[in-house]
């Protein structure tokens, strides 16, 4: 399932300057897949490039989920070392490199918050906000932010319950059962809301078809 859209038709070496509407923060999806393949063969320079192209999303996602920046840093580090170690297991036929990477980061972040005292997480003051993105100067973050605007518009097309369920699950690491409780939904329906929301997001953004 290769990602569709304008980016994937760019030549693999289409760099930052040559891509007017980058969807992968300056690197096309094909670039990232290639970097991941090279990393699997032990190419440290390729991995450094891969890191630079994806670290803001990986770290930002970890911060959203675990909240504590130093723990998020640990989660991101563990994830990147795993990405390096298991890069040969990436299969471009099954999805994009960035979704493979972020899936791994997210799983690690959720494992971290679930194994931590639940109460600690719930009580922590939430310092991080999406505003930070606007002030972020890196190319990756700036372009991610452009893309994020489109995503936010797509999110607006979800029902409120779909959106809330998705955010609680993805960004806060709650299980669908916990989400149901928090949103006062009958048991077993939160998972449906999450799935419906993701399907609509996917179809609106035209990815993964």
């Amino acid at each position, binding site marked *: *399932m290769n990602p569709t859209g304008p980016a994937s038709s760019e030549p693999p070496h289409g760099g930052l300057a040559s891509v007017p509407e980058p969807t992968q*923060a300056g690197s096309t999806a094909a670039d990232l897949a290639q970097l991941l393949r090279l990393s*699997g063969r032990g190419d440290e320079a390729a991995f*450094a490039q891969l890191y630079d192209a994806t670290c*803001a*999303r990986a*770290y930002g996602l970890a*911060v959203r989920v675990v909240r504590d*920046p*130093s723990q998020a*840093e*640990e989660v*991101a*580090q*563990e994830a*990147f*070392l795993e*990405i*390096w*170690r*298991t890069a*040969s*297991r*990436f299969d471009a036929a*099954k*999805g994009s490199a960035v*979704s493979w990477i*972020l*899936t*791994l980061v997210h799983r690690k972040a959720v494992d971290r918050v679930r*194994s931590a*005292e639940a109460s600690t997480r719930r009580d922590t003051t939430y310092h991080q906000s999406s505003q930070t*993105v606007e002030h*972020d100067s890196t190319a*990756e*973050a700036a372009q*991610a*932010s452009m*893309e994020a605007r489109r*995503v936010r518009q797509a999110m607006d097309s979800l029902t409120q319950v779909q959106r809330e369920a*998705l955010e609680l*699950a*993805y*960004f806060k690491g709650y*299980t*669908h059962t916990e989400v149901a409780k928090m949103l006062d939904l009958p048991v077993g329906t939160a*998972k*449906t809301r*999450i*799935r*419906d*929301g*993701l*399907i609509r*997001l*996917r179809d609106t*953004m035209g*990815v*993964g*078809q």
Partner: protein
Amino acid sequence: MNESLHALSGAYVVDALDDEERATFEQHLPGCLDCQREVSSLREATALLADDAALTPPPALRVSVLAGIKTIRPLAPETGRHASITNLDADGPAAQQPADERAAKVLTFRPRGARFARMLVAAAAVVAVAGGVVYHPWTGDSSQSSHLSAADQVLAASDAQQHSIEFNDGSSATVVRSAKEGHAVLLTQKMAAPPSGKAFELWLRDAQGVMKPAGMMTTGGDHKVLLKGNSLKATGVGITVEPKAGSDTPSSEPIAMFELGKSNA
């Protein structure tokens, strides 16, 4: 197609299933093309959500990641469905792994009761890793494999199987076993010190359930211990608190027990 399992796809993609549901869904996945397609496509949608969260990490992260990879050997590509490599609990999205491999690395390390938790709380002061660099077992190795210690050879083995857990206080313990090397290694990080006058004793549990002494750890902190005895036949690795001289049989309930399952051998 099982409708109720199928409905878990979205929650699976955002890691919103509990462990049991996740295991059930991952058993279902290899046999259901619909779910495989849906999981893949929803993962692409999920990845977009992270754009909104993008945040430049501290420069130190880049330094430690790029230093870290120098000591880690990338896995060889899979050569078949039944490849025996079952390393770690995070080998990329689980959907890209055969289910039998995933099942093999489920971790079942159970801290027993509040006592261990109390001991670990005391560990907060024992931060032995410089600069907050996270655990990776290859730290400090010579880069030349001919100079690797027996423990390091286990850690570097291509067939190393790893069972690990992280505790609430940031401490962690890991058992790594390699059939090729014929040994297992216990790694600890930021482990609490044993109670005064006591030590940690390590045990290999054989197929009959008998615990055999496999080594001692007299202090907390970070350790890399090559386990003595027949690691290949062991079904579990336990840690108990014992007198400093050690015991022939455990005198108390394990504070931690790793379930190893079958070795690759």
